[in-house]
């Protein structure tokens, strides 16, 4: 049995970690939105489902290249229109917000098209583009009143937000070193699906971990990087070492071919002069030598998902961070603010991804 957290510790949860939830109920019903989804794969289905549950019938249109998907879905789903052509959808629907949930290789081209067509609010799934150069270009052509959020949903998971709060407040003292991994069992057989992308697990899955690490710490350089292919022609396993501006070393390990992981898990272990933080999407475990007010004057705290998500968020589809991410985006539109994971803030993440691939290439090719 788990130890339930002390009630006074719960006072900082969830409002301090998740202001989105506190603000949301006040005006959710007032939103009159026209949302379109481009790409009706699993992420398109997920985001449109969450959005419709948050604001009934907010999603007005779906665009997908597949005739099978659009024709079949249009026979079943009557509350929205289906298109195979983005430009036609833009003309007929005039959406306020467009979600881009297509395969990664098309993100840059679709988002560029949307920006050129004066779509004001764009959500693009992670990774925002194939590389830093494409992100940089999108930022450069974006008009000042246009907003792009990137689907780095781990920053909306309350465990990771809590870990960042504790690190920033010195609860474990000065950071000494960091171990991290992201693992899944998604690719356990041969596939050529990533051949054209020419980038594998680091871009597709590892980008979440890189994004969290760049959010937690300032990454200065890549010390070493190595990749290995197992089932694909791209990186199925990626191992590297990074260094922060404070000369802290971070080990990073990404794999999508680990059969032990039914669903992806992101793990960060931070060692400081006063203690240790271990954090995943599922839990936060803190040990420290001094009592700290953020730990309710305790030295050891263990919190799991049920402690964080007590009756929240208001929609429970897949992991809670997806709903919080969508609420955050809608609120940033409502309040005319930059979202936490704006494309501008994601540029740093993509810069590190490029550096890691370059170093792995150098290692492989001497």
């Amino acid at each position, binding site marked *: 049995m788990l130890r339930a957290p002390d009630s006074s510790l719960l006072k900082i949860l969830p409002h301090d970690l998740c202001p989105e939830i506190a603000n949301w109920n006040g005006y959710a019903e007032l939103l009159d939105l026209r949302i379109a989804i481009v790409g009706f794969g699993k992420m398109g289905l997920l985001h449109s489902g969450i959005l419709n549950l948050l604001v009934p019938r907010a999603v007005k249109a779906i665009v997908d290249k597949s005739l099978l*998907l659009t024709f079949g879905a249009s026979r079943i789903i009557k509350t929205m229109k289906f298109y195979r052509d983005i430009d036609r959808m833009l003309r007929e629907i005039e959406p306020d917000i467009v979600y881009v949930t297509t395969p990664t290789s098309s993100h840059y081209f679709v988002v560029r098209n949307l920006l050129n067509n004066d779509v004001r609010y764009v959500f693009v799934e992670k990774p925002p583009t194939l590389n830093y150069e494409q992100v940089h270009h999108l930022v450069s052509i974006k008009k000042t009143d246009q907003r792009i959020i990137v689907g780095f949903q781990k920053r909306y998971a309350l465990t990771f937000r809590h870990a960042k709060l504790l690190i920033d407040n010195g609860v474990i003292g000065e950071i000494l070193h960091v171990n991290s991994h992201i693992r899944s069992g998604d690719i356990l057989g041969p596939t050529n699906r990533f051949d054209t992308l020419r980038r594998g697990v680091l871009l597709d899955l590892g980008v979440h971990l890189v994004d969290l690490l760049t959010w937690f710490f300032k990454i200065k350089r890549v010390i070493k990087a190595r990749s290995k292919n197992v089932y694909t022609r791209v990186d199925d396993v990626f191992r590297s070492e990074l260094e922060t501006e404070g000369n802290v070393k971070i080990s990073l390990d990404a794999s999508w071919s680990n059969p032990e992981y039914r669903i992806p898990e992101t793990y960060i272990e931070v060692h400081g002069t006063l203690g240790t933080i271990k954090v995943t999407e599922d839990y936060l475990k803190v040990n420290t030598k001094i009592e700290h007010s953020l730990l309710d004057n305790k030295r050891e705290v263990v919190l799991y*998902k049920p402690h964080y998500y007590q*009756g929240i968020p208001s929609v429970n*589809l897949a992991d809670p961070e997806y709903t919080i991410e969508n609420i955050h985006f809608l609120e940033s539109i409502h309040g005319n603010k930059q979202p936490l994971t704006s494309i501008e803030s994601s540029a740093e993440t993509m810069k590190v991804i490029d550096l890691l691939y370059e170093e792995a290439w150098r290692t492989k090719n001497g």
Partner: protein
Amino acid sequence: MVKELLLGDNPFIGVSHLSQEKAREERNEVSLVQKKVDVIKASMEGGVTGFTFSTHELNLKMFKYISDNHDLLDKLNYYILVPYAQGYVRKANVIGTAGLATTVLNNIVRKRFKDFVAGALTMNFKRVASLFIVNEVEPYLKILPKTRVKAILLHEVLVDIIVAYELIDLLKEIKKDVESKLGVSFGLETRNVSHLFKLVVSSGVRVEYVMTPMNPLGYQMASSKEVAEKAIEELASKLESKVIAINVLASGAVTPIEACEYLRRFKEYIYAVTYSTSKPSRAKENALLLAKNLL
């Protein structure tokens, strides 16, 4: 009134809503099929009368093993959750969503050619979707005693999408097929019970079973703990749905005693209570405690 205690299959297939770390530990504990049988038997000693499970291939293997080695299958009631969604998510990761749709359609064509042609000729894609559900559950119906299969429940991944898109006709089509073609009661599993309640009321579709999380923390209870509780009460009292409470221990964050205290408040609205564990001793202890407090 609570009529049944059910054992859930989460640890048997490596699922934990607490953490993946726990899921891996539990899966290792029951890696041998006989270990799962030990858990089931211990739970029955404590008062469990039913087993609820997803259409995961490990469960099919377990049922085959039980059928060959134990006199157990006809002593339990079964509540089947369909489909096992994570399996399809994984397939989509490898072959893409369009590829997955093609694979699913090919399976339907192979196994139910006539029904598929009928659905395709009339452009009835709801019919095709319903055939998918029937296909998924069929191998289990072949092995389990027919009279013991109490309900087939749609998994939350489908239910919550049905609710989000207001797919009332699809819901009716699947319900019709489950009830008439398979001859089994129909149910829905959801983590968004208040949203589901609104859809059920507005559509007039009667759902015999509703499976949803109920725990003192409100974990996985949407749109909020209080609103979800109200929806559960009304589903049971006004719409006469049989409510099956799941995740009553908030994935292990509350004690069984705390769970019992909480659930006692809703006794008149709950038809069955589910819990899961990978340990035979805990399977019996928890069943005894739940039986004493709730049955």
